């Protein structure tokens, strides 16, 4: 029987039912008219799965740049917890980064606001934040604190570094071999630490590497990159984002282990050295095909030890790649200290 209050009733009852614990819920459902109770039971049963179903569908319809859940327009001038938002620094698929003033401590920080529309994302957000917070390394951008906003978003407070992203450096000028080596070496150093702690970055690329004015490299977006990658993977298994840095096994045998970061660092090093990506194509399908099938080319002109490092990061078979980021550091260190002879000596260990 439809009453004028039909919808309003159902909305309010449903919201109330969602807030109840198991035994209280059962009492409540038994106390209201049976038809309504049964209707609510069905809706409550659908609620959990509906969340992720809609999330998947939403991501298919609005693969990026959509603002649902994140406060629209600018947060500039607004407050999140005890932070005053000063201006936007950049944005990603489901997040924005702002320069914010910590009003308690009176310092400026970088505040990343991440859209989290699902309960399960909250849990993952917390888990990922904890994992990253456990990393304390000079080449990894750390976390000061995390929290939630009033409207289904999470925030991560991070140090505000002075400098430029490696992408910006690369676009501004051709980088010297020494600079590229320094970037790759520091990134490998950070990856070595995170891999030892069991944390894979999953989105190493020039945009996620930041060089401070004193030359210290910081890997950005640990945890968030992982979270984003997982959430952006739709039910159809389509991974959003740039595939250019993805290793072959991510297409054939996902999700892949620490080797995927080694590969991505190889692609980054190649790009920093030549200005080009090693595997290219006009569409995602073509790029994937190239990553899977094409022989690596264009390294013969590269200076050592970069050539050696890049070739051994970009082996199609993950087992043939450097087995750890520490090997990249060793190769670069040895290359700076010794002559070419070193490479012919240790080259036997790797398939050439």
């Amino acid at each position, binding site marked *: 029987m*439809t009453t004028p209050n*039909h*919808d309003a009733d*159902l*909305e*309010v009852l*449903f*919201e109330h039912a*969602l807030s109840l614990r198991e035994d209280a819920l059962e009492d409540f459902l038994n106390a209201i008219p049976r038809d309504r109770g049964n209707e609510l039971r*069905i*809706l*409550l*049963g*659908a*609620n959990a*799965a*509906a*969340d992720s*179903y*809609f999330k*998947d*569908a*939403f991501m*298919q*319809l*609005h*693969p*990026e*740049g*959509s*603002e*649902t*859940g*994140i*406060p*629209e*327009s600018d947060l500039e001038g607004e407050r999140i917890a005890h932070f005053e938002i000063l201006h936007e620094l950049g944005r990603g698929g489901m997040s924005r980064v702002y320069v914010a003033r910590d009003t308690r401590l009176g310092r400026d920080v970088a505040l990343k606001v991440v859209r989290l529309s699902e309960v399960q994302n909250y849990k993952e957000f917390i888990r990922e934040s904890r994992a990253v917070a456990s990393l304390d390394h000079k080449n990894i951008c750390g976390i000061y604190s995390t929290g939630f906003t009033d*409207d289904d978003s999470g925030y991560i407070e991070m140090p505000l570094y002075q400098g430029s992203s490696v992408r910006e450096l690369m676009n501004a000028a051709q980088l010297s071999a020494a600079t590229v080596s320094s970037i790759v070496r520091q990134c490998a150093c950070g990856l070595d630490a995170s891999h030892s702690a069991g944390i894979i970055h999953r989105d190493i690329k020039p945009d996620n590497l930041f060089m401070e004015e004193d030359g210290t490299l910081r890997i950005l977006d640990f945890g968030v990159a992982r979270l984003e990658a997982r959430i952006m993977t739709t*039910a*159809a298994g*389509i991974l959003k984002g740039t595939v250019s840095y993805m290793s072959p096994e991510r297409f054939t045998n996902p999700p892949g282990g620490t080797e995927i970061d080694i590969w991505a660092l190889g692609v980054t090093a190649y790009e920093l050295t030549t200005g080009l990506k090693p595997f290219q*194509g*006009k*569409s*995602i*399908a*073509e*790029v994937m095909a190239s990553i899977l099938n094409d022989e690596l080319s264009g390294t013969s002109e590269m200076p050592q030890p970069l050539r050696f490092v890049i070739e051994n990061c970009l082996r199609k078979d993950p087992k043939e790649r450097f087995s750890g980021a520490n090997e990249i550091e060793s190769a670069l260190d040895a290359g700076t200290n010794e002559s070419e002879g070193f490479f012919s000596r240790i080259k036997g260990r790797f398939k050439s």
Partner: protein
Amino acid sequence: MSDSDEHRAMSNETVRLIASVREGDQQAQSELFTRLYDSLIKIARAERYRWQGNLTMNATAVLNEAYLKMTDGQAPTVNDRSHFLAIAGKAMRQILQDYARSKQARKRGGDLPMSSLDEVEEIPVFDSPHVMDITLAINRIEKEHPELVQVVECRFFAAMTIEETADALNVGLSTVKRRWLLAQSMLYSILSEEEES
């Protein structure tokens, strides 16, 4: 009229329509809807050639482009944008629904005339099963729960925030949150019912 004059006239007209929609003018609403329906298809088709390897159409990008094109930046208030997007969400839903139906009909061997919708066929999102299932399931709750459907049009099809949706529908934030939650569960329960039968 030159191109830019024509463009200016169109955006003036859109801004006028949005203002009338805001005041509850039904006819303005249906006129804006018709314009958006055509405009969104046109933009989605053009987008197809500009994907650069993205596997799915970005509906948000299409909506934003429609907004910029049709208003020429003349409707600066957040409130105007919300009203525009709410109708755009309705148009987006209609486009997807018409497409799903014509596709089903063709599958059954129906002899339908080619329409402008056939040209969007190559856009993968139009074959995304979840999006299509949701689009079709909505019809089954529209008669009894029009308020829920409005929220789905805003939140799902137009990717509007809770604030924007509240603004466009002239209801409170908590009402939008409640309806969005209920609508999702209701649609999902319909879909899982269908799956079982």
